């Protein structure tokens, strides 16, 4: 059974300038353990798709299930962790207490929360920064803390909305590498939004190429790359071939709009 399955999914926003078709007729199945990347220019609906899956937006057409449930039920069952574009750490909480926040909300006991916090901080290599406040950390470290927070509770799905968009390329490379290692270790299903082609190709088992006006899926690419991916795989023939296909897909989707 697919972890996330969309059938004929559509979302139209009613605005003062008339309807905006953020998503039209999206059919997609994300299997357990997949690393699926959504790529496309702004307005293509990649973030909207993730938000619909997370029950942060309501679809206006079609159906979507998360773990076989409606997004609302899935959210109530805490089926997913969501990482936003900005780290979204609370400035008045230390890193440790930021990570403990969802655990407090979900009613985990004090000892278990402490144990989980220690474990996820280790996972994102932030051990030793427990007592620091967000402003004392670099942007990359803040985003890692944010990922740790999404991992702290037992959600099998990780939805990430351009989590590394605001970071410089060197930090981004490192975090991409760490994310792959983390994915391999935890076996989670990851939905990842980006507008960087190399990032998409490097990370994914499947790449969903999307286009704007109306927001739609134009291509789904299965990656032939092995699960073990050192950074230099990005110079390999396979990698460049997929990147070219993604680029073609993006160009075809945009047409003469730009």
């Amino acid at each position, binding site marked *: 059974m697919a972890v996330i399955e969309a059938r004929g999914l559509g979302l139209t926003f009613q605005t003062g300038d008339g309807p905006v078709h953020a998503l039209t007729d999206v059919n997609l199945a994300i299997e357990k353990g997949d690393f699926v990347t959504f790529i496309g220019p702004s307005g293509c609906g990649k973030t909207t798709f993730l938000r619909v899956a997370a029950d942060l937006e309501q679809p206006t057409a079609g159906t979507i299930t998360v773990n076989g449930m409606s997004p609302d039920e899935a959210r109530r069952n805490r089926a997913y962790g*969501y990482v936003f574009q900005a780290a979204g750490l*609370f400035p008045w909480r230390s890193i440790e207490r930021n990570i403990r926040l969802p655990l407090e909300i979900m009613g985990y006991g004090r000892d278990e929360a402490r144990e989980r916090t220690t474990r996820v901080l280790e996972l994102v290599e932030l051990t030793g920064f427990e007592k620091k406040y967000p402003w004392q950390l670099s942007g990359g470290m803040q985003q890692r803390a944010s990922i740790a927070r999404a991992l702290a509770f037992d959600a099998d799905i990780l939805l990430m909305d351009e989590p590394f968009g605001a970071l410089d390329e060197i930090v981004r490379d490192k975090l991409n590498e760490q994310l792959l290692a983390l994915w391999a270790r935890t076996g989670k299903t990851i939905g990842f939004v980006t507008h960087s082609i190399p990032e998409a190709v490097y990370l994914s088992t499947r790449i969903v190429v999307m286009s704007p006006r109306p927001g739609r899926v134009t291509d789904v690419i299965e990656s032939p790359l092995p699960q073990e991916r050192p950074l230099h795989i990005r110079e390999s023939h396979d990698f460049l071939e997929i990147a070219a296909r993604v680029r073609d897909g993006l160009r075809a989707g945009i047409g003469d709009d730009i």
Partner: protein
Amino acid sequence: MTSEAGVSLRSVASGAGVAGPARIGRRLVQGNALPVLTVVAALVVIWYAGAVWLNAPWAYDQAGRAGVELGPVDLVAATWSQDRPRLPAPHQVGAELWRTTMEVAPTSRRSLVYHAWITLSATAVGFGLGALLGVVLAASIVLNRAMDASVMPWVIASQTIPILAIAPMIIVVLASLGVTGLMPKAVISMYLSFFPVAVGMVKGLRSPEPMLMDQMRTWNASTSQTFWKLRWPAAVPYLFASLKVGVAASLVGAIIGELPTGAVAGLGARMLSGSYFGQTVQIWSALVMAAILAACLVGAVGLVERLTKRAMGVVA
């Protein structure tokens, strides 16, 4: 030999003499002290000049009756030392303040400390009630759409009524209910102070970005969890900003509450009796006392703010 030593000693001495003031001078220029002192000095100069200008007619009148010609120096001396000047000079107010705070027992009716205490206690009760009311109103407005639509207009309307018009009515109504003394003044004080707190806290409780609210939603946080873990801490800076406005408004409210009651004690009563008897020096010293009190209250709120922020880890 001797003369050389004398010269060198003198140069050392003069060198030290120059270095000291120069260092102080540099510190004055670099810090805030110099601009602040300049403004204070300018205000004092303007005040003294104003005293000469406003009190001159009376001084000329007196001199004319006595058949004396007033020179400039005499004029200045006469305008700065009248018993009932239109505008008392700073030193007259200072002397009155000193006399009424330091030279009489603080429990005496003639002590400004006593009157300040009466006003302060009404202010404190009114401020406490006002802050509480403001926070509760803001929370209910933010959490409940019906409250937002129905209460907010009344909150704003309440402040369009001149407090001087409504204060006597509050006192009359409360007196008919048997409530007298400190409480009526505290109620007026509350009436003025709840508003800035309510408005500031509505903004503060709504200040978390949509992203943070979405985040709470992804964790399936309840309304009360979102309130206490996100909205409330996010509103803290707004809370203290509005408390500073609120505490000053509380003091004004307490003083106004003392005016129409025929109160015999409190800074407001002091101002009123001063105006009955033309005791401008008394009025001004009560005014200055009120200003000092307001500064202390705002400073106290600021101190609590700093301590709270430090405890929250948000160092400004």
